[in-house]
């Protein structure tokens, strides 16, 4: 029986691919090439604009060694990461359960939805003075600013994920005697996962932006603080070091989330790589 199987039904219906298959080596080579290309463009622009406006990559590297040696960069990075991670984790810890709750209880969700949308459309910077009044200029205020920046996309995506659950699967589970709670846990929640991870990715980038915003608007600290100090005193080489560190953090966070996504959605990415 099993042996014949193979000939009658070969494994088909893999995810259709557009263009040739990406191999890991290929993409890494391309990434490195583009990196040097960008470096070249940067260097060219620095030469044309003059180093008072734009430092060359080499000057930036030298400045990097200096700020690493005197410890200011590491302290600032640690401060910023603390604010970012605390704010982002808090927003996820609040937004995911709340979004699931909104999706699980339709009346509640539909009622709250209007206010969620209103809040998400409002520029969150507007809250900063109020936050400073209540929470001061320290970590609490910064973390809260990151929190309100990241919470809405995660919440809205989680809610949308639950609402977009597969009605056919729900009926299947119901026909087999599944309770509402079982259907929610075993059908709706896993079905919402791709939406939740998408929300987390948007939330993470907003959290990073808000970390810098918070450090500029409240007590000047962390990487945002360094940007402000170096920017105001026209130390452009040091300024660019901070910009690069922020970019690296951004890439690292996104890659981590992507890995997490692939692990959770194993079936979708089988045979593919990050």
């Amino acid at each position, binding site marked *: 029986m*099993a042996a014949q199987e193979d000939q009658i039904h070969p494994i088909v*219906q893999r995810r259709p691919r557009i263009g040739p298959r990406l191999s890991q080596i290929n993409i890494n080579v391309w990434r490195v090439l583009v990196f040097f290309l960008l470096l070249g463009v940067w260097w060219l622009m620095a030469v044309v604009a003059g180093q008072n406006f734009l430092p060359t990559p080499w000057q930036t590297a030298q400045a990097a060694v200096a700020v690493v040696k005197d410890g200011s960069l590491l302290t600032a990075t640690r401060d910023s990461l603390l604010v970012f991670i605390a704010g982002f984790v808090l927003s996820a810890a609040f937004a995911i359960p709340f979004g699931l709750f909104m999706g699980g209880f339709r009346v509640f969700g539909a009622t709250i939805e209007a206010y969620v949308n209103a809040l998400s459309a409002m520029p969150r910077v507007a809250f900063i003075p109020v936050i400073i009044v209540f929470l001061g200029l320290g970590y609490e205020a910064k973390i809260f600013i990151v929190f309100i920046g990241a919470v809405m996309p995660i919440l809205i995506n989680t809610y949308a994920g639950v609402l977009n659950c597969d009605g056919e699967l729900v009926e299947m589970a119901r*026909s*087999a*005697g599944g*309770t509402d709670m079982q259907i929610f846990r075993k059908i709706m929640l896993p079905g919402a996962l791709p939406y939740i991870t998408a929300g987390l990715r948007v939330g993470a980038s907003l959290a990073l932006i808000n970390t810098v915003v918070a450090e500029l608007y409240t007590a000047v600290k962390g990487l945002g603080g360094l940007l402000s100090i170096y920017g105001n005193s026209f130390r452009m080489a040091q300024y660019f070091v901070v910009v690069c560190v922020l970019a690296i953090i951004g890439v690292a966070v996104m890659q981590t989330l992507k890995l997490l996504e692939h692990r959770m959605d194993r079936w*979708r990415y*089988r045979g593919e790589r990050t």
Partner: protein
Amino acid sequence: MNDAAAGIVVRNVSKTFRRAKETTGVQALHAVSLDIKPNTFVSLVGPSGCGKTTLLRMLNGLIHPDEGEILVGGVPPVPGPHMGFVFQSFRLMPWRTIRDNVSFTVELSGMDAKERADRADKYLDMVGLRRFADAFPNELSGGMKQRAALARALIAEPRYLLMDEPFASLDAQTREFMQIELMKIWQHHKSIVVFVTHSVDEAVVLSDQIVLLRPRPGEVAEVLDVDLPHPRWDYDVRERHEFVTMRRHLWERIKDMVAADPQSEFYMRGAKTEPIRGAEE
């Protein structure tokens, strides 16, 4: 439990679907009565709109009749693992492996993980999918997916198997193999099978009894017994005289129903028309 109590009884069942804020609706079924004996394979056939699928969902207890009563094993039906349901769209959870999809039914009823994995493997064996236990649904062909869905229904050892056009989305060849597969499984695990299909062929090949429904509103037009000897995979059923006669008879009736149905796209396009009840409205 005696025979009568283990069967399915449908008495005078009517069902109308209404959209919100509408007083009139579409009557899906009108005064349908059926009596299905234990260990019988019954097919529900008829043109689109005859309420076959509605009736099947009512037998499962997913929806309830407006009038009349349904008794499954002597009691009104409640959805559960004892009533295996197989859908046309396979409805496998894409994020679960085939094994975990199959064991879903018994997972709902609280069987522990070790036991349900063993059970899943046993039923995967039965449908010939053991080697694909760890694959994901998107790695399988349509026929394999439907076998997995069948295993998911069978794993709870249901006394009633309700199948809603299960092979309709498969290619013609896979479909015939699946019919044989189903007949073999049914031979070993006798139960009531209620099988909804658009295919007259399929109904005659598989069933002990065929219930022909007519559309708008859905009513029982005729109940036929199929007297072809079992097991039917040993010979070519389609060559038998009884098969040909019954197939022709059913097909003629369905053609007439469709031609006389003003809401059908083939209205008045049949050779002869015979007015049917409800068509005048």
